[in-house]
């Protein structure tokens, strides 16, 4: 009995050590954001002589953090709302009205999920660059909508099919139209799927670099990953402010994770299995 307790303790210790090493890239970076580049280069493991936030202020300033943050926030919030609402509506259409055209369209949408972004990005830029529908929030949002809707429609569809018809029938007897029935009866039932899609799409839109880098050019429209890229390519000798910039960029998501870890892990795992 005693020896098993000892093995258990050793196991726990080993596991904790493993996690510590696993997360050390984050920990070492945080530690060094409080030091000068000189101190960091001399010894990345030394403790900061004093806790000053100079690097953070420098980063906020140099990478126009506030602009990037607000832009990312707008794109992510609006993008997710658009994808969730319209995809849920389309999924409802496909699940409840089994017209031939709906079946074909649903099949096309589902099949398109296999296509990687890399296969459409060049024609996308060619087409929308030619017609001039780039370098605006609207165009980026429209593209997130187009790319995000197939997975969302597919996920909502699977869920709506399991909802009994009786609820809608009762509503329609009471004289509720199709749109009202959807918003009052169906949409509230979709909460679990909404949370899955929200988690997947928030992380996608917040972290995405490639699409915005191709679509947005004006500095005032840059999302956080673009500001980070720009910061790193224009400011490469002074390391510790750059590290502070990285921490700042990660912070919003990590704070969310602290509170919503259960939903986030569940949402991402559900997205994987689909």
């Amino acid at each position, binding site marked *: 009995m005693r020896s098993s307790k000892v093995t258990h303790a050793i*196991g*726990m210790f080993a*596991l904790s050590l493993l996690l510590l090493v*696993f*997360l050390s*890239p*984050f920990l*070492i*970076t945080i530690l060094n954001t409080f030091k000068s580049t000189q101190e960091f280069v001399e010894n*990345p493991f030394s403790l900061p002589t004093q806790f000053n936030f100079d690097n953070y202020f420098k980063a906020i300033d140099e990478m126009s953090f506030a602009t990037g943050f607000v832009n990312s926030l707008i794109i992510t919030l609006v993008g997710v709302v658009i994808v969730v609402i*319209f*995809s849920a*509506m*389309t999924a409802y*259409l496909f699940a409840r*009205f089994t*017209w031939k055209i*709906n079946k074909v369209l649903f099949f*096309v949408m589902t099949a*398109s999920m*296999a*296509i*990687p*972004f*890399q*296969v*459409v*990005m*060049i*024609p996308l830029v*060619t*087409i929308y660059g030619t017609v001039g529908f780039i370098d605006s929030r609207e165009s980026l949002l*429209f*593209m997130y*909508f*187009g790319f995000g809707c*197939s997975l969302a*429609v597919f996920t909502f569809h699977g869920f709506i099919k399991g909802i009994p018809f009786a609820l809608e029938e009762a509503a329609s007897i009471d004289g509720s139209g*199709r749109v009202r029935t*959807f918003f009052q009866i169906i949409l509230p039932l979709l909460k679990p799927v909404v949370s899955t899609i929200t988690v997947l799409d928030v*992380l996608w839109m917040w*972290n*995405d*670099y490639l699409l915005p880098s*191709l679509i947005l050019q004006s500095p005032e429209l840059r999302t956080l*990953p673009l500001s*980070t*890229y720009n910061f790193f390519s224009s400011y490469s000798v002074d390391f510790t402010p750059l*590290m502070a910039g*990285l921490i700042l960029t*990660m912070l919003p*998501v*990590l704070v969310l*994770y602290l509170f919503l*870890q259960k939903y*986030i*892990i569940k949402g991402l*795992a559900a997205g*994987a*299995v689909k």
Partner: protein
Amino acid sequence: MRQKKLKNVGTFLIFGGPSLFAFTAVVLIPLAFGLYLTFTNWNMATGTHAFIGLGNYKSILTDKTYLEQLWFTIKYALLTVVISNVGAFSLGLILSKGLKGQTFFRTGFFTPNLIGGLILGYLWQFLFTQVLPFMGQKYGWAIFQTSWLSDTTKAFWALVIVNAWQLMGYLMIVYIAGFVSVPSDILEAAAIDGAGRFRKIISVILPLSVSSIVVCLFLSISRSFLTYDLNLALTNGGPYGSTELASFHIVQKAFLSNEYGMGQAEAVILFIVVAVIALTQSAFMKRLEVEA
């Protein structure tokens, strides 16, 4: 009758209109136009676009540097897939035994998945160029004495390690979901028959986890083949263009050299390679599946 039809058209447009419009405009039309692009010598800089048939595919498939690069990507993907899956499977096993604080550990190992490849790439850049060389010099570890990112082979391994490091926590969650559904009576029966811990893993858990393995292989194959952000931030294709993965190369070809037709043809070939590998894998693995 007519009125009903009209009502249905209205329903279709209201419920399906917006998403179908965006989907068509952003996915379907570019996809079709993209296929056409591969048959042209479309160049954004010179403005030329003539139809050249299979010319792009021919020159790509006979281009030795391209084929080497594709092979480089395949090697990278294979190693990433193996390392991340072995790691995730083992972590998942350990963290589904009901240890104290196991949720905490799962949460911790999952963390890198919340952050984009670009940020992670920059984060690790400091590790490879500053922190590890510091340790190498201090403790005399030859392997870390110089920056990994300035050596062709080591820069390749740096990419593999960082991508596998990130993927591991994600795949771990998928494996755990599978382990939880392994019936405990089978495990008990195996224990009564004298199976040790290792035997149980090999003969019971592994065969019953085939469906999670299929999902994880699929995920890790597509993720690693399509790596872009990490490549850009960590090595930027260097040293001397030795670590350009397929996606990176496509972006360079199209948006730096302006060879849109050529870049698109490379993208189509990459897609075919990924699809063939992913589907073969899943067809092969599905045959190993057993019922509990």
